[in-house]
């Protein structure tokens, strides 16, 4: 009798798991490429089809007709728009994003020079958002139905409704002017001598154990990071608390309480992992929103990142640079979504084990 039950229970599934994960990865990769191609088309169309001659925008006033014609031929603008697109795209695929008009440098080099600053800011903000959101969610779930939970709900409601731009301004007023403990502009104090070989100043200062520099960088980075982190922290807090509360009524959690674990232990050991899965998917999308927010927040704090450069590029009508930056942002976004999707598949035991 029991033997029959055994057979039903154990079926080897190992090859199927890997196959499924691989298949999922390839499908996502294909959609990702389609999305990137779409982004390239949209950027190209917005810039080239828009009113105004791109060549006229590129040249200083007083350029002759001969100059214009020469530049047209150089940029392939005498060809059809579809041909132009593929010429441009083939360059992009080879890593040739063109030359910045205002800065007269290779676009890709400029972008890679600035990208680390933005990534550092976004990652620090993400870590803060996960920490703040996670702690408040766990606290709210543990104190469910009390004034503590109501307070957390009100705070997260406000943090969510106010966008990063306004949080940045509020922080500038509070900690830049009223109680000036942080720096409100730049990435690092200009008088400092920087020994860094990479552009990841913050992470490199940690690795080199130069905590004096870490502190200076942090003093510059903290407020823009908090401004970016607050709305995301609120979303994480609300969603995670909601799913924690749902999980906390389930039988295996009750069983853990009977076993003698305290409520905090129950939440951390039994509930958190299962409740975090739905939050994880959302955090992926929201992280791309956070990175999108760096554009204006960097501007607000004069932080020398990619977003700040992008706004300068738009104001200077530096088309190649704009195209390059937008494409790099788009690539970053789809890569994050891909990573989150794969992480979800790996962490979900149901997907992982057949």
């Amino acid at each position, binding site marked *: 009798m029991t033997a029959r039950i055994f057979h039903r229970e154990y079926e080897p599934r190992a090859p199927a798991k890997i196959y499924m994960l691989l298949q999922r990865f390839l499908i996502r990769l294909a959609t990702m490429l389609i999305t990137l191609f779409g982004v390239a088309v949209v950027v190209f169309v917005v810039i080239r089809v828009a009113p105004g001659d791109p060549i006229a925008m590129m040249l200083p006033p007083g350029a002759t007709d001969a100059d214009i014609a020469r530049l047209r031929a150089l940029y392939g603008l005498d060809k059809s728009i579809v041909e132009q697109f593929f010429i441009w795209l083939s360059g992009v695929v080879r890593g040739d994003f063109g030359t910045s008009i205002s800065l007269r440098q290779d676009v890709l080099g400029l972008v890679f020079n600035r990208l680390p600053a933005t990534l550092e800011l976004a990652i620090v903000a993400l870590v803060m958002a996960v920490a703040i959101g996670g702690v408040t969610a766990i606290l709210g779930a543990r104190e469910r139905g009390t004034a503590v939970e109501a307070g957390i709900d009100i705070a997260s409601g406000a943090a969510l409704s106010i966008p990063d731009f306004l949080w940045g301004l509020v922080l500038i007023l509070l900690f830049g002017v009223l109680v000036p403990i942080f720096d409100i502009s730049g990435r690092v104090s200009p008088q400092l001598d920087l020994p860094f070989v990479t552009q990841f100043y913050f992470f490199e200062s940690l690795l080199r154990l130069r905590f004096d520099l870490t502190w200076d960088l942090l003093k510059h980075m903290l407020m823009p990071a908090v401004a970016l982190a607050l709305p995301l922290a609120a979303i994480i807090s609300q969603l995670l608390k909601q799913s924690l509360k749902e999980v906390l009524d389930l039988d295996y959690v009750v069983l853990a309480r009977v076993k003698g674990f305290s409520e905090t232990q129950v939440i951390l050991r039994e509930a958190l992992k299962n409740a975090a899965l739905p939050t994880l998917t959302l955090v992926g999308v929201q992280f791309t929103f956070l990175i999108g927010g760096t554009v204006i927040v960097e501007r607000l704090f004069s932080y020398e990142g990619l977003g700040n450069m992008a706004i300068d590029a738009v104001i200077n009508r530096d088309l190649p640079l704009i195209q390059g930056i937008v494409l790099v942002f788009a690539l970053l976004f789809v890569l994050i979504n891909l990573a989150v999707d794969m992480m979800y598949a790996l962490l979900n*035991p149901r997907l992982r084990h057949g």
Partner: protein
Amino acid sequence: MSACLDIVNLSAVLPNGQRVLRSVSLAVQPGEVRALVGESGAGKTMIGKAVLGVLPSSVRIVEGDMRLEGEDLGKLRPKARRTLIGARTALIPQDPLTALNPSRRIGPQMTDRLVRILGWSAERADTRIRQLLDEVQIRDPERVLKSYPHELSGGMRQRVLIAAAFAAEPRLIVADEPTTALDVTVQKQILRLIAQLQREHGTAILFVTHDLGVVAKISQKVSVLYAGKVVEEAETAALFAAPRHPYTRALMGATPRYTDPFASLKPVDEAVLAGLAAEIAAVDQAWRQPHG
């Protein structure tokens, strides 16, 4: 010798003031299997949850004492109570599908109480768990311990949960309808298993069920519940031989018998229900007077 579990005058209410437990008194002796029977909503699960300290947050205990081997649970600090309950009791839950954490392997879920609450070494806990898995006739412990819950069938999971419940040698196990969610064929095996382990370990069990057939098989004493009140308490054999309360008789009448499947399914008689309503009203009246 003090009772393993002694409940005196336990009352619990919902936020709207409705009583879900009406002055319940109940004593379970060491090694005794006590069945709690009643229809759904009769409060039998509530008693189990109250003992284990896992009542839903909406239910509030307003009166009564619960003693676990002489220790007054109401007088302990929450942390001490948690630890005491964790060390001396265990729960065999109703639904084995939802009672195991889907994202943790079986092994750690079975040993965590032994290691983290009782302070056993990992090796000792592991040995103990394998011993118990053998007792619940799992022939393949290596594989089961490494599995995730969804890789096991319902019957297997219930075996795992039973093994985990007995592993720490608790004095009292609350079995909350442990066979209800299972296939009929598996039900019998599981029931036999619980009875066998109970005999070998000498554990007292508070066995919550709505199935009088199960009661007859496993318990020594029975408490019959209606609307959160114990309406009859008797030795199992005596109860089946001569039920005193009309509601008990009605319940027995409502239990299907294979010999006469159609005649036996009678609804509870109107007169019996009216008598019960009067009885409940009298209890509530007596309860309200001292409490204003």
